[in-house]
């Protein structure tokens, strides 16, 4: 659906990272973890295109104004990287945005009770929070979160509050273990030998490493990809990734927006 949304809050979660809470129509509450929204950051022809953001959180709270009825809200987590996000970061409570969503295919949540392993890098954490909120209802959840430095590690407290066991790794060792999050995660895998499913979102090198670990250990794994996109609905074909030759899948370009953003790692070509 396409809707006008009001900014409820827009706060800096860590230097360069913001969390924005927005009003949303009730219909959005059926969105699945892993789906995303396209946000028009400004009602003007520049910047021209919408910006895609994974759903960080979705819920309802008592409306701030009015009769005390429930108001659905949507949260996005974003890093200020370019003109669009610079503009988003200047918005305040009461500002309005035009939003399209929910778009794309979300995560398959897997077998209940089985251990769920979440791997997030930097702002790639965004879709994993909403996912964790759903998963903790039925399964033990562990989160491995990585970044260059401590400022790239977001929302650890929020995950812990859900009951998610959280492990942190930074390249420079300023928070958690020094090193790659994927290495920390793999050590954990070899320690415990029960059935698990992995879910990952983050930079491509991290996803590649996660996919390799999933392949080596024969663990089901879904990855959520980021891509430049114009439309978000499978029309522009700008956001494609190359699908891998596989008996169940066609070996051609796949739209991150429509066939994804969540893919079974076996669907993709990782080279």
């Amino acid at each position: 659906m396409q809707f006008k949304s009001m900014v409820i809050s827009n706060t800096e979660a860590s230097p360069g990272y913001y969390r924005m809470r927005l009003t949303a129509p009730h219909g959005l509450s059926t969105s699945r973890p892993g789906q995303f929204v396209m946000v028009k950051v400004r009602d003007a022809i520049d910047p021209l295109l919408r910006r895609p953001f994974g759903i960080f959180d979705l819920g309802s709270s008592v409306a701030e104004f009015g009769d005390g009825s429930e108001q659905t809200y949507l949260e996005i987590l974003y890093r200020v990287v370019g003109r669009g996000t610079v503009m988003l970061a200047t918005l305040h409570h009461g500002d309005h945005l035009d939003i399209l969503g929910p778009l794309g295919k979300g995560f398959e949540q897997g077998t209940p009770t089985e251990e769920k392993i979440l791997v997030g890098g930097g702002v790639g954490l965004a879709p994993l929070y909403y996912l964790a909120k759903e998963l903790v209802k039925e399964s033990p959840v562990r989160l491995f979160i990585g970044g260059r430095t401590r400022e790239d590690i977001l929302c650890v407290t929020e995950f812990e509050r859900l009951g998610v066991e959280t492990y942190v790794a930074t390249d420079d060792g300023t928070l958690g273990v020094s090193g790659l999050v994927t290495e920390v995660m793999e050590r954990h895998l070899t320690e415990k030998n029960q059935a698990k499913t992995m879910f990952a979102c983050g930079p491509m090198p991290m996803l590649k490493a996660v996919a390799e670990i999933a392949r080596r250990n024969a663990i089901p794994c879904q990855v959520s990809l980021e891509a430049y996109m114009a439309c978000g609905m499978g029309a522009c074909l700008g956001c494609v990734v190359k699908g891998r030759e596989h008996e169940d899948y066609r070996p051609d370009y796949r739209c991150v927006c429509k066939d994804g953003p969540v893919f079974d790692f076996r669907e993709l070509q990782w080279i």
Partner: protein
Amino acid sequence: MKRPDMSVEIAGINMRNPVMTASGTFGYGEEFAGYVDLETIGAIITKGLSLKPRAGNPTPRIVETPGGMLNAIGLQNVGLEAFIKTKTPFLRTVDTPVIVNLFGNTIEEYAELAFHLDRVPEVAGVEVNISCPNVKLGGIVFGTDPKAAYSVVRAVREATVKPVIVKLSPNVTDIVEMAHACADADADALSLINTLTGMAIDLQKRRPVLANVTGGLSGPAIKPVALRMVWQVARAVKLPIIGIGGIMSAIDALEFILAGATAVQIGTANFLDPSAAQTIARDMERYLVENGIADVKELIGALEV
């Protein structure tokens, strides 16, 4: 006041209003069905089709530029067979003319595709994309050589009795010459403009942003160029013209009609607002009502110079 007459006709294709969706920006219609009432727009032009499926270019394929975007998708499409099998069943259910944009690498491919589409009842007409290289003639682009354009349009013309629209490239010195060549080959209508070739550079990486190095510029940034070309071509040839280029609003659309277009195509605007075509058609009608204009056709070429 009575509702104004918004209908127009292009080469026998009757449309409820002059607003069409541009090829490559609206998928096969179905993708947008949840966001737009397809029976409120004039016509749907589907994603460029070739005989065989095409994978398209490597990524990055798109980049935003000031007031526009560059794309180098590489004509990725499902191919004729899958189009007929998987796309026409939905299109059949929509009471809006469907025009198929087609292309090939050789004149024979264009003709063969037109021949097959001639037998597909869901297809109201074809739009010939002449912006791709002619592999047989060493990569010369059909859209920039009047003789090559004539040959390809002539071949399509002979392969189908359905209306033939030719989509012109703006990347030429004299677009009027190209328009004449297509008219001489018995095209029924012309649509213009396709994207302007451009490029974007990443200073930090010292590399082009697009994997293809260059791409086609679309969006509001190209509107003035498109208006000028529509105006030039409309004065020079008798064929109906479909104006394309950065149309974001009813005002933009009406400007093209004043310049001589009978209809318009909405392209990049569909990406930012999937209901753009519907909104533009509605707002055009409102403009007519507010200005006491009974028939949109009164505005075609009504520019006072």
